[in-house]
């Protein structure tokens, strides 16, 4: 299908140059959060609640403060009062108030002259607790008789009569679902559950904070969004944002989990109390798992009506999600719109509640809410396809959303690539490979909105004709390379002549974090605009030199050219020549663009997975895995493939073995990577990828965000493949061997 708006014939876009951070990372030179140090720096440790829910009766730090080398202890009493809303939630999570709300909740922090001494001092801080009743399971938290863990969390949306732990309620839909179910040949309804999972980034949270008695401070921190760190830390500490300068480090993974604060303000509070000495705070892996944001756990009812030919006549969902002990953290607002986003169905009803529980404050995790919703809806679609002996790709093509469809959540889709991914999956060799005994194949599609957001970018031309780009979105997935390619393409200069730097909060206007798969889209779009500004200025400089109108100059191949015969005969003036003379032709040449970026294009994907299940142990081996996803335009295809593979790997982990395991005491049982089982390299086959390119009309080069959609289909695809291999349908993740073996035995009777 030819499109007039689609440009082709790029010189650099679509190529795979070396990553700009590659050498530093493989040689160990890259500076991550914990690599930063300053003279006179202190080290901090945090005292954490060993109880899921407890009143804090007393905190006695006298023994810790008596140790030689201990410089400061902070408790909630050191933080300002009077905060409200999410600022109060952030403060409550940074340091517990009168109650600890989950196992691992920070209660006090100490700074000392060495990390070991700080840990010793933390052990000497005596906290007296009065243990309170707790609840950790999403369904149990809203069951009659469950302890209300915080009073007054319900917002305006919660209907009367719901349990006191219910914080939010949502509903929307269209069409007549009852008529739709009546028109179906089969109507099926099941409940699906997913357990909380952690983003599992390899780099733990780390920062160095410094703040004087005057309330002016600096922080060096591992984060996806340093303006968020600045705003949130300033709110928690009661200081002005302008007085806090935040510089992001290189980042060892984020996946959404580093878009907020957990312990960062503690470094500043300790520093202020220790006379302004810088304070380093580095979390251990156990602290990361106990006290930073995993995603929500979910319990989800789904009902679907289908005709014998595969037409879906109606759908209905009721989702229950918990996002920890704080309201507003579960992704019900994303899960509901994602539930049927891949389909064009005449009648849909969506309902969801958010409930709080004694678990850590949830954070974003790659397409928040979408994987759970996909697990529920796509699993049931697969169950009905198997029952009616219909091909799962054909059923999705028959019911799939397409250009101009009104989406399940309201807006009309402009140009989308779902059907292209389904066709490519159907035609891929993997879909035709015969399956052996105990093997099964699963198919699922997935969706993510993608995001634009507040974006500010600057670009400066160097005296030698190179270009420096200043962006505010930390690079978690290749955005420096992709933005560099787009800027180089626009300027018409080599990729190697463009350096893209992620700069600190003092250097640009406010930037939202790298979230919502927005960095390459939004910072890229702004960088292209900034480059166009610089080009316009360079054309003016050339025009002035040639004595012609700026409009009579055009830019191509990295140089100003006279535009047509009337402009006179002038040899092209290169960016290097213009740069070398800029001091005498009007001064520095730069471009700047800031925008709340619009024109986002959603990304759809379809996955096909083959598994083999050991019928005697219930252990699942992933034999082959195919990701097909629409990238709009793949600026740097290797990074796009990496995002596809990474999303699939995390989704496979969620499907098979990852879960938060709580004991009867409400404590997390598996806060180490030994027992929190993310896939290791040898668990996965090489993940096959197909990049579909249906360019996004809202971006100068057609970019769609690609980072998140990929984690969505694996949950249902893997469970459906296991169902194909065993005849046993797992409706509660993870599909761990004990659960699968029990299901196999139950299916046999």
């Amino acid at each position, binding site marked *: 299908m030819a499109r007039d708006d689609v440009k082709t014939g790029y010189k650099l876009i679509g190529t795979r140059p070396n990553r700009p951070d590659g050498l530093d990372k493989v040689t160990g030179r890259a500076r991550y959060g914990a690599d930063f140090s300053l003279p006179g720096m202190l080290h901090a440790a945090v005292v954490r609640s060993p109880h899921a829910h407890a009143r804090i009766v007393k905190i006695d730090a006298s023994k810790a403060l008596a140790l030689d080398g201990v410089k400061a202890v902070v408790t909630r009493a050191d933080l300002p009062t009077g905060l409200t809303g999410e600022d109060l939630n952030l403060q409550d999570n940074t340091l517990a108030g009168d109650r600890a709300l989950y196992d691992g909740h920070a209660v006090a922090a100490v700074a000392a002259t060495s990390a070991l001494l700080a840990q010793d001092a933390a052990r000497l801080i005596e906290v007296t607790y009065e243990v309170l009743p707790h609840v950790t399971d999403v369904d149990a938290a809203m069951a009659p008789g469950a302890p209300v863990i915080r009073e007054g969390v319900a917002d305006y949306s919660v209907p009367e009569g719901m349990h006191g732990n219910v914080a939010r309620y949502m509903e929307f839909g269209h069409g007549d679902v009852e008529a739709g179910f009546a028109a179906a040949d089969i109507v099926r309804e099941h409940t699906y559950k997913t357990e909380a999972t952690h983003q599992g980034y390899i780099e733990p949270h780390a920062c160095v904070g410094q703040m004087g008695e005057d309330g002016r401070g600096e922080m060096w921190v591992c984060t996806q969004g340093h303006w968020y760190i600045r705003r949130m830390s300033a709110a928690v500490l009661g200081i002005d944002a302008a007085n806090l300068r935040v510089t992001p480090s290189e980042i060892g993974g984020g996946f959404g989990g580093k878009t907020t604060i957990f312990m960062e303000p503690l470094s500043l509070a300790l520093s202020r109390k220790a006379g302004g000495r810088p304070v380093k705070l580095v979390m251990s892996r156990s602290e990361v798992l106990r006290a930073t944001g995993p995603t929500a756990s979910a319990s989800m009812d789904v009902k679907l009506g289908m005709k014998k030919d595969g037409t879906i006549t109606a759908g209905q969902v009721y989702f229950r999600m918990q996002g920890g002990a704080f309201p507003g953290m579960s992704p019900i607002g994303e899960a509901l719109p994602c539930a049927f986003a891949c389909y064009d169905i005449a009648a849909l009803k969506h309902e969801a509640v958010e409930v709080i529980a004694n678990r850590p404050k949830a954070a974003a995790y790659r397409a928040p809410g979408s994987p759970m919703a996909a697990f529920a809806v796509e699993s049931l679609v697969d169950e009905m396809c198997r029952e009616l002996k219909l091909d799962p790709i054909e059923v999705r093509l028959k019911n799939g959303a397409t250009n101009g469809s009104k989406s399940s959540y309201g807006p009309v889709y402009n140009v989308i690539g779902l059907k292209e991914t389904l066709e490519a999956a159907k035609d891929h060799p993997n879909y035709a490979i015969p399956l052996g005994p105990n093997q099964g194949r699963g198919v699922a599609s997935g969706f993510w909105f993608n995001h634009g957001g507040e974006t500010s970018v600057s670009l400066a031309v160097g005296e030698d004709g190179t270009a420096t780009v200043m962006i505010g979105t930390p690079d978690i997935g290749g955005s420096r390379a992709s933005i560099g390619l787009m800027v180089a393409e626009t300027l018409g200069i080599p990729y190697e002549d463009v350096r893209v730097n992620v700069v600190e909060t003092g250097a640009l206007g406010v930037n939202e974090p790298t979230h919502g798969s927005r960095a390459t889209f939004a910072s890229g779009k702004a960088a292209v605009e900034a480059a166009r500004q610089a080009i316009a200025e360079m054309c003016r400089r050339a025009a002035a030199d040639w004595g012609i109108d700026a409009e009579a100059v055009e830019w191509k191949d990295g140089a100003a050219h006279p535009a047509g015969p009337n402009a006179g005969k002038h040899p092209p003036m290169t960016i290097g020549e213009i740069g070398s003379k800029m001091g005498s032709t009007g001064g520095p040449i730069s471009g700047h663009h800031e925008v709340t970026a619009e024109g986002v294009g959603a990304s759809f994907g379809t996955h096909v997975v083959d598994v083999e299940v050991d019928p005697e*142990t219930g252990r699942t081996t992933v034999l082959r895995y195919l990701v097909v996803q629409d990238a709009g335009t793949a600026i740097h295809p290797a990074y796009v493939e990496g995002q596809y593979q990474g999303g699939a790997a995390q989704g496979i982990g969620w499907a098979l073995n990852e879960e938060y395991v709580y004991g009867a005491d409400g404590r997390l049982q598996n806060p180490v990577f030994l027992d929190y089982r993310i896939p*290791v390299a040898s668990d996965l086959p090489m993940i096959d990828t197909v990049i579909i390119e249906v360019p996004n009309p809202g971006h100068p080069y057609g970019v769609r965000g690609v980072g998140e959609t990929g984690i969505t289909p694996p949950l249902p695809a893997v469970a459906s493949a296991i169902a194909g291999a065993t005849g046993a349908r797992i409706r509660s993740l993870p599909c761990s061997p004990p659960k699968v073996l029990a299901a196999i035995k139950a299916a046999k009777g």
Partner: protein
Amino acid sequence: MRYHTPTSFADAAAIAAGATGTLRFLAGGTDVLVQMRAGMVQPDDLIDLKHIPGVDQVVQTPDGGWKIGIAVPGIVLGGHEGLVRDWPGVVEGMSLVGSTQVQGRATLAGNLCNGSPAADSVPGLIAAGAMVTVTGPKGSRDIPVEAVPAGPGKTTLAKGEVVSSITLPPRGKNGGDCYLRFIPRTEMDIAVVGCAVSLRLDGDKIVEARVALGAVAPTVILSEAAAQAIIGTTLDDAATAALAKAAEGAAKPISDKRGTKEFRIDVAGVLARRAAQIAYDRAKGPSKGSQA
């Protein structure tokens, strides 16, 4: 913390006997150092045994067995031709411990004395009939490996006693062993169930067998009933079914974050059957054994 580097096991035992606080021995350190970093243990005395001559050696005993020093790391065992030939099941158990980096340090003696019911090298040693030499203030004594663990994190060793070597018996003719573990992933994981089988054949018939089960009780179980289920058989279907049933009966697991009781019992039977078959094929030798 006091860090000691004795140059003899007698000195090590003397230091240990005189210690009054928390004591840990350091061989590879892949458990102790991790526990110290995690704040699980803070030793008052840490006795590093690697300065004692001979602890990094594997030597053949006069009767054809193998004496293994307490600091020999897994990677050396895995590359030792004689050990791999005689006791592949013992070697493969040790090779499953940790990552490649951990393999460069982790030792059989440390894996044993850490006292984990899920230790991957211990069932193989017990099935093999390995002995340990224990040195204490009153001298040395030899005890079977299965006499060392006393429960999670505990051993039967008395105050001042330290394991000073591990000895595998001579393999002899027509023998084979195997260790299998169940983990949900492919590596970097801890056994949910482990099983080692060592056996000897006379022709096609099993004449000796030892079956050890890991992670299904507070200590590794040496199951006589499981051994008897296959002794005198050619490991036909009836024998493997009886073996699985005996292994299931011997297993006394708990339900925890790594697996349910029911799952562990089922998998103990499955692994016993599979391990016995591999050990049997190894005993038959490559020319005679079936291709598994």
